[in-house]
């Protein structure tokens, strides 16, 4: 199975993130919470006033930014994977029901999608977090509740197309085994599409978490998140622009990496999946 | 006798192979000559190369095709060596096309008026008002009722027959010396075909302003039409002209075996019960062998 350079890029980024998330205690040069007020607001090591021991510089409380970035990969990855999978499960389930069973299911789900998409995404996120509360898993649930529509719409369209093809077969079977037909025939054809959507969603999830942190509504613990770093960085952007710049780059890299992963994997899987 | 409107000499057109496929010769040394005002039929089966000739004359060869050798003289100009801008000046004005499929030949998003007037104003110094009046006159000439109303309409609001009339109007708009008619009635209902052909004949004779009429390169696979409309005919098979001459002579006494087989294959009104006679494979096989030998010789000579 030969992979395109794009796919390799995606895999590399994902592995890097995973490594940071899992191996933070060993990879991070400093304790992310350790403050050193004598070394506060230092620029990255390659700049004029930078110090070698703080590769990416420090924030206003003297905390090493590189370590905070590395530790920040953990909540980012958890939110990305869990959020995307949860959104995918909910959205696919509803999309399949709407597309395959049609009728009442379709009417309800379509209406629901319409209502959901009438909310500005950010607003919905904030309202949901207000209801569910802050914390990592709240964010995961919030992401699933916001973006399930992305999966539902696409899966519904696919399922409708498929079920039209299998209509004759479906018409001759009884209720329960229709569900089996659904699982056995529709689902495998939808999987490559889902793969792309899940990786796309992962990129979106990471950004949503960052946005919520930016607004002050995400994880409430001391553990650094990229969004929290961005919030701090925005406040002091004129004094310490790298505090804003570095997490932005990290986020962008994560988003591009996840997208590349999805595209790359789908490209290489396509000839294998019989269409 | 005045100079020919179109002169093709030894035209070879190559189709470059995709990926690992070899190049193929689509036209093998085609010679063709059309005199002013002459209706010249080009007859052959599908894939024989009729469209290739048309596309070369019109300058719209597909991406992968290229002229390997030969000359094309259009109204005395060395067509193949002309700069693109000069060619564009002649296209639409001195030589034009009546396409095969009227359903897809007109832009869906523009009115009929726009599509007729734009070719007028591109080539002739005309105001919008003058162009509009000429467009109305053209629509009248092609026997379209309510031309003013049609001008404001979009192609999808017209029937196939009406669209073909509009296309004929566009072809004759600037008074061309040569029109390439690429199976202009194939896509139409039989009932409409007769009218459109009659119309074509009338306009061709009138010539849109030219004395002696407009020359037409009439591409078809229908021998009946050839007999009715054409002055001269060239028979093409496998990218080569196997026979050419006056229609009356050829129809009376065809020389080439292929031509004879072609005529024999045509169903006849007066002998309806007769079984259809497909072209003898031996005839085409012989021609294919000739073509292969030709290809080899040609490749060696390059």
């Amino acid at each position, binding site marked *: 199975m030969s992979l395109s350079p794009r796919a390799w890029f995606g895999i590399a980024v994902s592995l890097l993130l995973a490594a940071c998330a899992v191996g933070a205690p060993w990879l991070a040069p400093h304790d992310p919470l350790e403050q050193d007020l004598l070394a506060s607001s230092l620029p990255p090591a390659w700049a004029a006033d930078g110090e070698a021991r703080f590769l990416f510089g420090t924030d206003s409380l003297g905390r090493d930014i590189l370590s905070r970035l590395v530790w920040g990969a953990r909540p980012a990855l958890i939110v990305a994977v869990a959020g995307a999978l949860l959104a995918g499960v909910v959205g696919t389930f509803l999309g399949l029901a709407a597309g395959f069973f049609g009728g009442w299911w379709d009417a309800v789900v379509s*209406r629901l999608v319409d209502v959901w998409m009438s909310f500005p995404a950010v607003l919905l996120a904030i309202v949901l977090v*207000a209801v569910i509360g802050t914390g990592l898993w709240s964010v995961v649930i919030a992401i699933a509740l916001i973006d399930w529509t992305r999966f539902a719409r696409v899966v519904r369209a696919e399922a409708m197309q498929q079920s039209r093809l299998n209509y004759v077969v479906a018409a001759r079977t009884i209720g329960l085994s229709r569900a089996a037909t659904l699982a056995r025939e529709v689902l495998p054809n939808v999987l490559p599409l889902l793969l792309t959507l899940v990786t796309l969603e992962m990129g979106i999830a990471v950004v949503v978490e960052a946005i919520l942190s930016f607004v002050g509504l995400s994880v409430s613990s001391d553990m650094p998140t990229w969004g929290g770093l961005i919030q701090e960085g925005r406040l002091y952007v004129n004094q310490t622009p790298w505090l804003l710049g570095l997490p932005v780059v990290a986020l962008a890299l994560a988003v591009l990496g996840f997208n590349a992963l999805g595209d790359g994997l789908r490209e290489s899987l396509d000839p294998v999946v019989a269409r | 006798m005045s100079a020919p409107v179109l002169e093709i000499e030894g035209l070879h057109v190559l189709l470059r192979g995709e990926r690992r496929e070899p190049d193929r010769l689509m036209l093998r040394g085609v010679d063709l000559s059309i005199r002013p005002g002459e209706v010249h039929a080009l007859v052959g089966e599908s894939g024989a190369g009729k469209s290739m000739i048309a596309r070369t004359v019109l300058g719209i060869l597909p991406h992968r095709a290229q002229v390997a050798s030969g000359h094309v003289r259009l109204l005395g100009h060395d067509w193949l060596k002309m700069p693109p801008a000069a060619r564009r000046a002649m296209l*639409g004005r001195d030589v034009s096309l009546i396409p095969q499929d009227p359903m897809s030949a007109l832009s869906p998003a523009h009115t009929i008026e726009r599509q007729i007037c734009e070719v007028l104003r591109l080539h002739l110094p005309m105001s919008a008002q003058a162009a509009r009046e000429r467009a109305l006159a053209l629509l009248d000439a092609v026997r379209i009722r309510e031309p003013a109303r049609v001008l404001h309409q979009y192609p999808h609001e017209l029937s196939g027959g009406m669209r073909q009339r509009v296309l004929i109007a566009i072809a004759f708009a600037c008074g061309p010396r040569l029109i390439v008619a690429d199976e202009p009635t194939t896509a139409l209902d039989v009932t409409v075909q007769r009218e459109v052909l009659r119309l074509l004949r009338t306009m061709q004779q009138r010539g849109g302003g030219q004395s002696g009429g407009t020359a037409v390169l009439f591409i078809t696979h229908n021998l009946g039409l050839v007999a009715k409309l054409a002055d001269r005919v060239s028979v093409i098979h496998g990218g080569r002209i196997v026979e050419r001459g006056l229609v009356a002579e050829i129809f009376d006494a065809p020389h080439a075996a292929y031509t004879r087989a072609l005529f024999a294959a045509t169903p006849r009104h007066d002998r309806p019960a007769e079984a259809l006679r497909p072209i003898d494979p031996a005839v085409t096989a012989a021609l294919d062998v000739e073509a292969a030998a030709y290809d080899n010789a040609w490749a060696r000579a390059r």
Partner: protein
Amino acid sequence: MPIGLVLRRLAWAAPTLVGVLVVVFSLLRLAPGDPVAMMIGPGATQDDIRTLRALYGLDRSLPEQFALYARDVLAGDLGRSISLKENVGSLVAERLPMTLELAALALLVATAMGLVAALAAALWRGRWPERAIDAVTGFVTAIPDFLWALAGILAFGVLLPVLPVFGLLDADLAFTASSGFVVLESLARGRLDVTASALEHLLMPALALALPLAAMVARVLKASLLDAMAQDWATIARVKGFSRRQVLLRHALRNALSPALTLTGVQLTFLIGGTVLIERIFGLPGIGSMAIDAVINRDLPLIQGIVLTFAALFVVVNLLVDLANAWLDPRQRSR
């Protein structure tokens, strides 16, 4: 004017709007945190709290509250903001024009950029400009407006400080737009210095919003253009004597717009939704920035009013897209 289209769209939208209201209504009342307690000062008695709750109708049952609210909304009354103590309707009316101007500017920029990119890619098809444009659009479309906004602040606010990063106008310019449309009104009143300042402040936010949409428009329109150029009528236009460039601009473009609009139309609502965060980042006084604080303060009437406004805005936008589509594609008109 396709009245049928308009009516059908509105008929579909009505239950959706009701649904939106129900959802936000219920969600907010499920949220922990008492809006009254949040705004009331220390030293308030239980009586005071109870009186305030009664004033805002918070002591009644959920369905009852909803019914009362629905009745009020239909009469045009959106209630009173708990945190800002003003009429919700007037608060929205005050700040909506700002958001609309931002969105309109972003849309303009996105359309212009996308159009140029698509035309360039189609024109230089098969050569390096096309590949470069494809690579750039692929990259740009993946990055959300949030990140573009921050990148913009870093690049043009800090590194190369050429653009302002906060607020709508320079502090020393005294100007109030009675209509709320600062850019338009300053232009109309001849205060070009104000117009310039406003546009300067709006440039980065608009760009951040516009970039993802522009990239998407570029890709979709390019595909649509190439599709159009492959049609028979495009070849025949060449035979009329038009160059490839002329055919692209005169014939193909007009035909390619409708399918492109169909595919990108839905993105418009995302652009408008993006104003919530972008206004916050850049400190612009639109309804978006008001929304975030409203949620944090559990200002129920205000949140409901804002959500309803956005939903209605989306309906209008979708309707406009439908109408534009009908206008662009003559085949859809005669239905």
